[in-house]
């Protein structure tokens, strides 16, 4: 399963996986927006470019998802498809250049859920498994 939601009393824990860390980051983003709208209802008409960074993979993950939440408000768009390219600076900082595709929120077509307020450090992990990568984090609803 590329992403799933894990029980958390007040908020929501999401777990995403992919063959590569980059793929897992894209799945985590899909999970984040799936909480707010079913991905199949989002047409890929517009895109925004996203830059995120972090000294660890975990912190990069939070930065990436937080950037996407900010872009949701700034552009009024919901996103459903993501592409990322990852690089590492000479001092070890992970730098991500990404593209998020989606469209402006339209309540006549989008069956919206609760808005995600933020991405926390709770239960946060990035793990390399035999079959790829797994990301977990708790988001505040």
């Amino acid at each position, binding site marked *: 399963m590329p992403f799933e939601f*894990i029980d958390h009393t007040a908020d*929501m824990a999401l777990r995403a996986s992919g063959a590569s860390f980059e793929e897992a980051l894209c799945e985590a983003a899909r999970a984040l927006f799936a909480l707010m709208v079913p991905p199949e209802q989002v047409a890929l008409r517009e895109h925004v470019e996203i830059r995120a960074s972090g000294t660890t993979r975990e*912190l990069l993950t939070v930065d990436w998802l937080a950037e996407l939440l900010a872009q949701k408000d700034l552009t009024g768009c919901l996103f459903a498809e993501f592409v990322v390219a990852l690089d590492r600076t000479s001092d070890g900082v992970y730098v991500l250049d990404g593209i998020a595709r989606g469209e402006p929120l339209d309540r006549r077509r989008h069956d919206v859920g*609760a808005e995600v307020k933020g991405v*926390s*450090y709770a239960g946060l992990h990035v793990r390399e498994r035999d079959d790829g990568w797994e990301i977990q984090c708790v988001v505040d609803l």
Partner: protein
Amino acid sequence: MFERIGDAEWQIAPSGAMLVPAVVFADREMVDELQRDEAGSEWSALRQLRNVACLPGIVGRALALPDVHPGYGFPIGGVAAFDVKDGVVVVGGVGFDINCGVRLLSIPLSADELGERAGLADALFAAVPAGLGSKGSLRMTVSEIDRLLREGAAFAVGRGLGLPEDLPVIEESGCVSGADPETVSERAKQRQFRQVGTLGSGNHYLEVQRVDELFDPAAASVYGLDAGQAVISVHTGSRALGHQIGQDYLKIMGEAGRRYGLPLPERELACAPVDSDEGRRYLSAVACGANCAFANRQVIAHLVRGVLADRYGVSPSSVRTVYDIGHNNAKRETHDVDGVRRELIVHRKGSTRALGPGAEDVPAAYRSVGHPILVGGTMGTSSYVMRGTPDGMRRAFGSGVHGAGRALSRKKAAKKYWGEDVLSSLHASGIELRAHSLRGVAEEAPGAYKDVERVVAAAEDAGINRRVARLRPLVVIKG
């Protein structure tokens, strides 16, 4: 593990890295539940409370109130006070929805006089922007946003959105001092442009309620509440501005904590010394977020007054603000600790202030009984007005419960309940619900929450809060 030290007060003695005891105000069943969760779940409020008890400079005891449940880092329903000189300020102790809280408005009509409720529900639903992506009608420039962050509710009143007499009956008169907009990122301000005067989603709501029962008629009379009267509760927070402040400072404080070499039990408890540049800037940003939330509830109160004037011909000034209080805050306060007056930063995550009779920061009109505590229920049950006690001032840093507290996760609730069913069962019991998200309705079904009656009873048994009045929902507006 727990030692019972009062009627509804349980203590865990410090062990390991805990610097102070952890104390839970709860009934026995709640305590048993907390212990079961600690043994069996990845997310445990008790484990989070013990972690809070390990943070540098914590004073007295780490507290959990009866509505406690797991949060991120800090438990929701958690209270912790830190010394201003050698303590820390913790991002998770405030959370992403800074000064999320409740405003209570009284209407000069009885619940019976409201008449047909469906029309009232439709009118409120149309007037108050709610739900994902909703936009407020207030348009502002960057410099106006800065003024809003400095001035709070008074900014909205100055724009003709509300009445000057609202201000004294808002916590801290609707304006937390020390709010420097320079400590808030441009991005946070940009995200907020379209969101002033919006309700949001999730557990936020607007309810028309009936004052169902008075438990403390003398205090109710001081608050101007009568049995049978109609009131309106608005539960919302600082919207995207608060969310972005939380996100920005989680990163800043996470790095600061490492730089200052703070011994942190969990990364999620990102914090910095109160007496540091990062700590001071965060507290200023929290003050900005708090003022944004006060202004937000002020604008919504204005929209509600417009609906009531249209429908019932009641004047805006006859729709009175009873009180407005937040439940996600870190505030600079002075408390007696073991007979010594100490200046503290009191974190309340999912907990209100509950300043008792005679406390200086209580509005003059309410000083004889203490200010109201506004306790949100669920859309099918009840909300409560409570008040603080002298005992609560001594034993709980003057703190109160904030709501029923979740019992079921959103995932479990969405599986168990169906939005349409919740709507029709509420309708059958006389409650008109209007919501933008049926998925949200299922997640917020009354059965997903603890029994608010037990929560308020435990707070009263513990002696920290007193019941004043119970409010029953008639109309519910959700995002």
